[in-house]
């Protein structure tokens, strides 16, 4: 037992099961079995980190590389942070209890902006200098990957390099390169390795680039080294069928957020919702076959004993062979294994699928119409009609479901109060449908409405849009709340407006924001996604201290000609396409899903269907 995981530490915190590191399928290696020690870090609590598929894929991929040992390190809960500080102990890895500073590399998953302060917390608790410029020879390399690596600028000074795109091919390449370098040329210093790794497609070394500003506004980025390519191209695993997949998922002791096994039906999504970043950065759509998936399902159950498998993707009813897959899984798996479909289209087909897999009706069904009016749904290119939503809801109630959950967004481009009124009307209609007699929820609500705030994300057609200011977001929330409160059987939840503001600032941020981040961290900000931890006033003080206005990022709509802080990172989708989609949005013209219909001309060279050049359709 590593001394760090001693009773003196573990019994002083809530949920010590977070820190044991000996779950089934956790990998343990002896020191003589590896030369490269990698910490896979996730800047959130165990229960969130262990729900993340990407981390599990990388864990198994990295541990399969000869001479590499990959372990997990997660953000300590506040009580553990306090104990570590009091006892003067370092943040440790779960499997072997190694201090973060003793690894060769620390790789962070970059999943949401509100976890940025937790990254700094983990570096500090792990004994690693925050800024890469201050790191000496013996300090681990800090790398980051995940969706936010598509605009890593606010994090640039804290990271040695980023990995843009799918990680499962590029990570082994990096590890092999490092192993050679460590054995042969580590005496040449950190920069020598960074130069080598910069040559790997998908790797971005921020210290090899220098942004410049005009009148304090971001004006572009200059490469400083020969090795610095422009743009940095993302990595794509084209053959998902043959890509490694971890059927021996680690089985947590404690309950985690997604306490189930995951099958990844396909990666990417071509529906083309204009607010959605995942829909751009994960292009093109790549599928796995039914036979591969059913084999993986059996392997996962055999190796984990989990009781539920989630059939996951960005939009699972779009998997062309979904019914065939369900049939095969039902036939081949133990009848007590539950299946779940997390992201269904709000249409009758979605309800039909749900009907088929979920015998327990009390658990309800979730739809995401995103916008309340047809006009606004056309603007955001959410290709679903009111008729479909209503029919799906009616079907859901008729077949015995007692509860429908609806996701909407407010503050979308062009939104007016009329669109909000339409949302209210839509919910009204749905809640007026007769629910089943025995819904199993007693007096509880039949319809839950959850409203989040629009965040304009980089690389989307809405990157030229701005966020609503906080007072206006609150006014619209109040407008909705007053109306939903009066409706019987409807409950209403909304996202914190200040939270979404910080998210927007950092989503669209440039390198100057790093100073704000560091300031916020020293003012005690961490785990900002947890409402009980979030302190807006601390954030405001941080902005003020650095002399930067968050508004100039979140509430600013750049013109098409303005250089954007993420322009040097390429998703493969061309800017012309994004501009075209933005213009069509403003005009309320929809664009069809290129999976079923014509190529929409996004310019993606890696797409087998494309007419490639991003020509006008």
């Amino acid at each position: 037992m590593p001394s760090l995981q001693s009773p003196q530490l573990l019994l002083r915190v809530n949920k010590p099961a977070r820190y044991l590191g000996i779950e089934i399928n956790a990998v343990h290696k002896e020191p003589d079995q590896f030369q490269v020690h990698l910490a896979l870090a996730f800047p959130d609590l165990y229960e969130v980190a262990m729900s993340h598929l990407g981390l599990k894929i990388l864990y198994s991929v990295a541990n399969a590389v000869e001479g590499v040992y990959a372990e997990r390190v997660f953000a300590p809960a506040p009580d553990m942070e306090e104990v570590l500080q009091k006892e003067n102990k370092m943040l440790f890895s779960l499997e072997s209890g190694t201090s973060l500073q003793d690894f060769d590399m620390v790789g962070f998953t970059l999943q949401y902006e509100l976890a940025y302060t937790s990254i700094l917390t983990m570096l500090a608790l792990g004994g690693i200098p925050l800024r890469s410029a201050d790191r000496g020879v013996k300090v681990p390399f800090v790398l980051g990957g995940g969706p936010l690596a598509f605009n890593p600028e606010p994090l640039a000074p804290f990271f040695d390099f980023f990995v843009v795109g799918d990680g499962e091919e590029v990570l082994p390449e990096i590890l092999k390169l490092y192993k050679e370098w460590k054995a042969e040329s580590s005496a040449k210093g950190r920069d020598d390795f960074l130069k080598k790794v910069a040559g790997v497609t998908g790797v971005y070394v921020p210290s090899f680039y220098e942004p410049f500003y005009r009148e304090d506004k971001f004006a572009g980025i200059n490469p400083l080294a020969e090795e610095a390519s422009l743009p940095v191209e993302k990595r794509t695993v084209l053959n998902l069928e043959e890509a490694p997949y971890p059927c021996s998922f680690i089985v947590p002791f404690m309950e985690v957020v997604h306490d189930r096994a995951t099958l990844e039906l396909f990666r990417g999504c071509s529906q083309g919702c204009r607010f959605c970043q995942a829909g751009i950065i994960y292009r093109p759509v790549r599928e796995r076959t039914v036979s591969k998936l059913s084999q993986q399902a059996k392997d996962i159950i055999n190796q984990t004993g989990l009781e539920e498998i989630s059939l996951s993707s960005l939009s699972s009813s779009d998997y062309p062979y979904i019914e065939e897959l369900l049939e095969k899984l039902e036939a081949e798996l133990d009848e007590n294994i539950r299946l779940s479909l997390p992201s269904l289209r709000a249409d009758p087909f979605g309800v039909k699928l749900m009907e088929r897999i979920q015998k327990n009706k009390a658990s309800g069904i979730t739809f995401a119409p995103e916008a309340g009016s047809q006009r606004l749904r056309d603007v955001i290119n959410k290709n679903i009609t009111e008729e479909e939503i209503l029919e799906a809801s009616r079907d859901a109630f008729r077949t015995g479901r007692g509860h429908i959950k609806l996701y909407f967004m407010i503050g979308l481009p062009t939104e007016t109060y009329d669109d909000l009124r339409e949302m209210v009307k839509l919910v009204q209609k749905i809640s007026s449908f007769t629910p089943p007699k025995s819904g199993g929820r007693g007096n509880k609500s039949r319809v839950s409405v959850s409203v989040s705030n629009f965040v304009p994300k980089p690389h989307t057609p809405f990157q030229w849009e701005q966020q609503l200011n906080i007072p206006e977001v609150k006014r619209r929330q109040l407008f909705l709340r007053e109306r939903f409160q009066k409706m019987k059987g409807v409950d209403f939840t909304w996202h914190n407006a200040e939270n979404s503001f910080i998210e927007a600032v950092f989503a669209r941020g440039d390198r100057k924001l790093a100073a704000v981040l560091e300031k916020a961290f020293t003012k005690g900000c961490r785990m900002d996604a947890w409402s009980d931890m979030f302190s807006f006033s601390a954030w405001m003080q941080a902005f003020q201290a650095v002399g930067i206005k968050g508004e100039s990022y979140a509430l600013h709509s750049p013109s098409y000609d303005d250089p954007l802080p993420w322009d040097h990172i390429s998703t493969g989708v061309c800017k012309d396409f994004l501009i075209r989609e933005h213009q069509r949005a403003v005009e309320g013209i929809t664009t069809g899903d290129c999976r079923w219909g014509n190529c929409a001309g996004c310019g993606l060279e890696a797409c087998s269907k494309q007419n490639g050049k991003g020509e006008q359709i």
Partner: protein
Amino acid sequence: MERFRVCFAKSGMLKYISHLDLQRTFLRALRRAKIPLAYSQGFSPQPRVVFAAPLGIGIEGINEYLDLFLTRQMQMELLEKRINKQLPMGLIVKNICSISLEEPAISALIGAALYRARLEMDPGSLQQNIGNLLSAEQLPKERQHKKGKKQVDIRPFILDLWEEEIGGSRNLFMLLVTGSSGGARPEEILELLQLPELRKGTILTRESLFFRVGEKLLTPGGAAYNNINEVKAWREKLL
């Protein structure tokens, strides 16, 4: 349907997982071991596995019990081997016996538990303090409930306390009432005796669980003692 009683130990790092975690961990191990579990009826069928009594975080248990309902007969050695192959380090099945389906739920029968605290630091003489507790009429203890604090008299829950020297070090044994209709937690006794708590390094073990039938104490595995003194005598024989 068949019913088996499984005696297992929870120790090492696994003493830090909660009772719910233990249930989840066991069920997943049983599924990996391909044990033909019987399921309850209804909309969300649950595997029929019944644990005898929850064990607090940080306490190890060396004779814990659960009842397993299977859809078909299985050879007990095979069952034990298959389960043990799938349990994480820190959990181990010690033995399995067959039980009549007619018997009441094991969790409803549990009435007492024997705990052992290893006293790492020399606490001085305990005789006096133990004597005081045992001769007290009442021992009011404040307990934190969901709805605020509540005073509970825990004296009736203390069946006996005694000290034993094992391999040169001192141990406190606590035979306490436990189960669905109330009981005392071993940590409460440590506190009353002003002994260091778990996080200060005291090692606490649940040595055995008992059904109570009048004066008699019966282990779920089938051992029977006519009274507390026989339990003590059995303990002494182990030395």
